[in-house]
């Protein structure tokens, strides 16, 4: 069989073997002991030509219900937003996607400048001094923020205080990361959809390296960051905020409340949901922590003629230099998705970002009012960004099954988070939902909650 990615011909092979001084490729493997040689052929599905493979992949793709054919109300950390057409057009420039980490700055100025612009945009959005070039995703960025907080104060503080209102999978990831260095994770309970501030204050003590809240939180409500800052200040703990970057088009950024670290996922900005990844973590902080930031940083500099240029910088922080002394092991990041987010932020610009954020808030508020009118209980009274909780008093999975028969993908089943939230649904409304869709959804829900299962 011929392979279109393999250019070596029989004639090439003969010439190359001659130069090497062997008779067969096999001789190049003579140092692989006989008893560990793989015999026979690996048991893999058979190779397919281009046309047949596209058919097979389409078959798999078509076995899924996608949000383009349905109307979705799922959010819970991953969001369906308007993605300007230019975003994917730029991503398909193969000078970007077939390059690797810009180790050779002279031939990587494009990538480096794009990332420098990304760092700037994230700093602007979050209200922080600096941002890095990206992390794997929001939750791992948040976990790395916790590790960085614990490495300050010469590593003497060993506790991370975290609100129960952060994304449950972010909490899971945080616990796994904390287990490595043996940090204690103390969880502050939720009260009316927000962090219980009294309990937060009582939980923070002299061992607290960092305090983590999410903004807007997992239930879509907006935490009182001024109060969190105050609570953290009592013991000089770092304030770490996990933020939805799109919401920061309208919400007061965490930096203005004095956050020390803002982490999150840029997925709402130009990155497709892709069944949960790859997305794009971001990490922003203050100048004070510049030498402890995990991941790559791009900095501006000059060449010998004084021309402006960009390089990877402050690399002494990183694993390839510090090895076991590095505070993070991160190496590759999500550069291509950081590029996607940059292009999306450029396309939206100052005005578009605010307008999009506003549309999310207003659409959400509209549906909230509509559902209330239909007699559906909205669980928390606090203001929302683009998500809120309703109580269906019926198993959410059942309701979702019925909604799906009408081409609707219902919201997230909060019963999966805790037993006392059974029957509660987290509903998400983005700028893509039209008035007609929201009204249909409200009508359907009204019918369904009055049905007995």
């Amino acid at each position, binding site marked *: 069989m011929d392979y279109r*990615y*393999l*250019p*070596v011909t029989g004639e*090439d092979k003969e010439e*190359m073997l001659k130069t090497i001084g062997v008779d067969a490729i096999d001789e190049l493997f003579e*140092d692989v002991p006989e008893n560990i040689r793989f015999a026979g052929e*690996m048991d893999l599905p058979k*190779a*397919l030509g*281009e046309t047949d493979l*596209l058919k097979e992949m389409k078959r798999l793709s078509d*076995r899924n219900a996608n949000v383009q*054919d349905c109307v979705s109300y799922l959010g819970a950390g*991953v969001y*369906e937003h308007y993605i300007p057409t*230019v975003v994917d057009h*730029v991503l398909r*420039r193969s000078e970007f*996607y077939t*390059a*690797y980490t810009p180790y050779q700055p002279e*031939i990587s*100025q494009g*990538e480096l400048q*794009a990332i*420098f612009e990304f760092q*700037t945009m994230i700093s*602007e959005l979050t209200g922080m*001094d*600096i*941002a890095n070039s990206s992390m794997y*995703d929001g*939750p791992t960025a948040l976990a790395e923020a916790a590790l960085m907080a614990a490495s300050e104060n010469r590593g003497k503080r060993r506790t991370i205080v975290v609100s129960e209102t952060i994304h449950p999978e972010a909490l899971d990831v945080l616990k*796994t*990361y904390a287990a490595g260095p043996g940090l204690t994770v103390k969880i502050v309970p939720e009260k009316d959809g927000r962090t219980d501030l009294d309990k937060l204050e009582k939980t923070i003590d002299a061992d607290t390296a960092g305090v983590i809240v999410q903004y807007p939180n997992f239930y879509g409500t907006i935490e009182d960051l001024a109060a969190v800052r105050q609570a953290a200040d009592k013991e000089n703990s770092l304030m770490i905020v996990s933020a939805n970057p799109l919401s920061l088009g309208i919400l*007061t950024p965490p930096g203005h409340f004095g956050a020390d670290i803002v982490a999150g996922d840029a997925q709402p900005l130009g990155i497709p949901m*892709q*069944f*949960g990844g*790859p997305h794009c973590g971001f990490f922003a902080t203050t100048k004070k922590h510049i030498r402890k930031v995990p991941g790559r940083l*791009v*900095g501006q*500099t000059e060449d010998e003629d004084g*021309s402006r*240029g960009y*390089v990877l910088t402050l690399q002494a922080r990183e694993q390839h*230099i510090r*090895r076991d002394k*590095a505070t993070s*092991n991160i*190496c590759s990041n*999500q*550069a291509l998705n950081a590029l996607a987010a940059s292009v999306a932020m450029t396309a939206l*610009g*100052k005005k578009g970002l605010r307008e999009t954020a506003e*549309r999310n808030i207003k659409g959400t508020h509209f549906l909230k009012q509509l559902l209330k009118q239909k007699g559906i209980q909205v669980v928390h009274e606090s*203001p929302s960004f683009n998500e809120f909780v309703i109580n269906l008093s019926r198993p959410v999975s059942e309701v979702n*099954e019925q909604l799906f028969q009408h081409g609707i993908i219902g919201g997230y089943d909060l019963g999966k988070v805790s037993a006392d939230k059974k029957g509660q649904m987290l509903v998400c409304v983005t700028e893509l939902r039209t*008035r007609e869709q929201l009204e249909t959804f409200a009508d359907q829900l009204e019918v369904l909650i009055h049905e007995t299962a």
Partner: protein
Amino acid sequence: MKQPNQPLIFEQSKSGRVAYSLPETNIPEQSLSDILPEASIRNEEPALPEVSELQLVRHYTALSNRNYGVDSGFYPLGSCTMKYNPKINEETARMAGFAATHPYQPETQVQGNLEMMHDLQQALAEITGMDEVTLQPAAGAQGEWTGLMLIRALHEANGETERTEVIVPDSAHGTNPASATVAGFDHVTVRTDARGLVDLEHLKEVTGERTAALMLTNPNTLGLFEEDIMEIADTIHRAGGRLYYDGANSNAIMGITRPGDMGFDVVHLNLHKTFTGPHGGGGPGSGPVGVKKELIPYLPGPVLTKENDKYYWDKDRPHSIGRVKPYYGNFGINVRAYTYIRTMGAEGLKKVSEYAVLNANYLMRRLEPYFDLPYGRHCKHEFVISGRRQKQLGVRTLDIAKRLLDYGYHPPTIYFPINVEECMMVEPTETEAKETLDAFADAMIEIAREAEESSEMVQEAPHTTVVGRLDETLAARKPVLTYNTETSLKSMK
């Protein structure tokens, strides 16, 4: 050739320009201040750029023209496997069923995604010789840390909490010791011997009852196959430790030998290397982890399960180390890797490794007369040469790398592994034609000659790139990590 700076996107901004159009929604107008408290509303707008769509496209096109990828030319960056990124992968990953699905859709709505993931896990288990694979880790480094956390959980379950040390060769990638630290282990270095392989005697000295694991890549970072691997495995296993396989170099062994058969207990793969997920300018990657049976209970949850031709997530995993990443890993990259595996099949993947090794050996022998070759045996998919000889002429490896830019190539990995002086690590990959290898070898030979005859010219390279050598010391001493008006004014000079 040197080119004027591409202005930052912020410097092209003019109030009133847009490059977007939001969908019509017909939602009745409401006042924001009726919904949100005053203190929650941002009072100062973020300084995002305001440009038209064409300005945007020209900006990013200009930036892409100032960048170099595999599609631009030969990119023999050692240990990174810069092979061709098939275009069909980019098409399949964008199919609506893959790209426009939400991770929290009920399993019944996403059976196609789960089927693909399941079959990919099986294929990777077969290729590596492991019993189970998780696709959750985001990248190689996260895979390493995940694997070490699994080993730690196993030791703890066996009551062997005194196993606090991870052994790492001196030639290992920096992520290995860093991952060990993040997983809560101490790290111990084992030396490389004169053959370029793990020093067995030294390994025996440092292995003991505190040994939790040995991390190894095979072929190692010098591109050499650890032929004593069974004795190495035996040494570690007899002491009660486990073997971790860093899959960064798996491009050399597909269908030839498998980590599982070499005695490894845990393995990670870099799907963006061996399995053609593009490198994306630094990521996203994907770092699945494969394990032997005894480690299955500790895998990060949830675990994908198949029953009566239906796929679902098993969340009842009481011994799991917990989640390492939200949702199910870098799914979009996994679609690409699966597409590649289906393109090549078993025979094709074996040919990949054979030709990767053939190409590397050919290039190595062509360069051998002109550069120091610290380890002369047959290499696998990559090899290491040293610029020691040129250094005596005042030309350092960094200079050679910069001079290669003038010849239109991406240089090899330099100064790694750290145990070889003036190191250059070359990985041509199987997707390069002999003509390309010959042209690159000719350029390297020409640079070796230049080093002898006009060393200054090499020291001052590059001469043809859009910017000259950049001042990295300045960047680190006075870090400028974001744009502000001050830096903008400077650029206008």
